[in-house]
């Protein structure tokens, strides 16, 4: 039985597409500006990646303030090798570094992502770069090196210290050529990435 009488306006929503365009276009333009500024190494970006192993290679790394010690890293998921959530890695920390021909390759859900930078005349600069790797290789030369110091007393990279009693390597400066790292986590305070390019597929040999 239909009862006429007062009706209740029932709310529903709709999207005003003109308004959508008005707000999205400037924001997208700003995003494009950010991308371009990063590619010109005017803007520094921060990284904190973990869980998925990735490869970092660089033709040459010059660093000031270098520390290396063992760490036990944990992951939220049991996706580390051996189906555990713990892995022993070497933390490599550099207070400030310039890198040439930097290549980072990581696999996210079946998709291979490759980030390259510093292939031109301007090198990549990074500060407070900490990489937790299980494989590390290169030809390195160090200045003022100390091997075997207690990792909790290191001062080369401010704020980065290892567990107490841990074996460490520290140097005031380092030059590494043909650097290759297989890493599980990296954090960089700042990264400027001149000539930055992000591509899918390919590998850092």
């Amino acid at each position, binding site marked *: 039985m239909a009862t006429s009488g007062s009706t209740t306006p029932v709310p529903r929503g709709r999207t005003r597409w003109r308004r959508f365009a008005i707000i999205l276009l400037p924001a997208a333009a700003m995003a494009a500006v950010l991308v371009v500024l990063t590619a010109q190494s005017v803007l520094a970006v*921060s990284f904190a990646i973990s869980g998925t192993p990735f490869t970092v290679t660089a033709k040459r790394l010059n660093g000031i303030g270098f520390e290396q010690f063992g760490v036990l890293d944990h992951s939220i998921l049991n996706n580390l090798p051996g189906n555990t959530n713990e892995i022993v890695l070497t933390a490599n920390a550099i207070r400030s570094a310039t890198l040439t021909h930097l290549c980072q390759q990581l696999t996210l859900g079946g998709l291979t992502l490759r980030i390259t930078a510093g292939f031109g005349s301007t090198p990549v600069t990074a500060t407070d770069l900490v990489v937790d790797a299980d494989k590390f290789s290169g030809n390195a030369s160090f200045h003022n090196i100390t091997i075997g*110091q207690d990792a909790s007393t290191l001062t080369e990279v401010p704020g980065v210290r290892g567990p107490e009693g841990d074996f460490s390597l520290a140097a005031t400066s380092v030059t590494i050529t043909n650097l290759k790292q297989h890493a599980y986590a990296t954090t960089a305070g700042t990264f400027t990435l001149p000539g930055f390019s992000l591509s899918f597929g390919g590998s850092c040999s």
Partner: protein
Amino acid sequence: MSAGPRDYGDTGRYEPDDERGGVHPITAFRRWRNTRPFWGALFVILSGAVILLSEKAPVAVVIHIGLQGLAGYLIPVILLLCGLLLLINPVQRTFYSLLAIVLALGSWITSNLGGFFVGMALGLIGGSLAFAWEQREGPQREADVSRPHKTWPPSYLRQRDDQSQGLSLLVGEPGDDSAESAAPTRDDIPPIPGDSRGGPRQAGAPLDVAGPHAESTGYRAMAVCAAVVSLLAVPGSLPVHLASAAVRAAKASASPGVKASASPKPSASPEPSLSPSPSASPEPSASATPSASPSPTPSASPGAGKSGGSRHGHKKARAPARKAQASSQPAATARSHLSASSAMLTGASFDGVADVRTADGIVPMLEFTMSSLTLSGTTIKIVVSGVTVSASAVSLGFSGGVVLLTTKISGYLHGTRVTYTPQRPPSSVPRDATFTDMVTGQPYLTAASLQSTALGIAMAQGA
């Protein structure tokens, strides 16, 4: 059955309710979804989640990096919060959506390139969708008078659109835009008796300022605002760098033993990080100065608190005896040993047994000084949490005031097997000697410089 004419409800679909006026859960969900910027909020939540998933750095590392590490996590967390609030509290969607856009732009700088661009794109689209969403009157339903126990839609949603006064002045009335509106406009809706109307859109309300003329003005004004807000996004993210550069400067100046010669980097760049760490370039050349220079420079390389040639001469004057290393940094306690197929020492001398500080107390170690040490086929094995970390190198060349402290050294010297420990120290070592199959325990090495060829570090599970 109390169904009258086919009830298309407020979702535009035929949704007969059952006799008791209960609501099918899918219908309820659809109605709930229609009363808020659902897809915009979902995109924003996804963007925050994608950025967070791309991070997951070990928390200890992030804490050490400080403010910048925190910003990398703060931004996606706030993005998540904005998305949730857009769902829970659509009234404030203007603020949440604009905030989500600004944060998505900032995440490019702070969080793994905005979650490798995907997170940033989702955040921008979601924020724009939420901003552009508005509430409209749906097609009229039959009255709820016959079903008083019906509780949908909840009373607070039966009010007219809830845009703020400011935005309505700026944007113009929704429903004035005849090209877009298919739903009945505000003017067609008779006032509902008994409903409390807090909104400013009551028919005939004095706030009915924006008439049809306000449409184009409103859009112009809104375009200006949108541009200003987007432009503010860039300098808005720069203060993050300013703050973090200041934090680094404070940390660098406060941390002990930092070399004065090489450390002005953070303090030189408190300005926004448009100039990429300019002092990074002069530093490599500064560090190339030969590190045989006396102690002020290598103040952070503890060794035995000594450095370079000056210490070498100083040591020679001492008689080999037990001495505490008061100024040195503690040695590691982890089980470690260094083995080399051959070790060539030049300018070597045995300086006695030293008391070395470690986390487990004082450990006596043999102390050797030499002007250079060349190791071939070296392996250093360290046990960390049951895993053996091994560093290997084809060759390691230490030079410049090399000090080796070790709890045990053994090998073949001139064909005879020797083993030295602090309990059985050597009386002396030849100035230039070559050990083969040398093994040292708990090595603690300091040198002014090290050249390595094919240095590699790898892990092997199990000690």
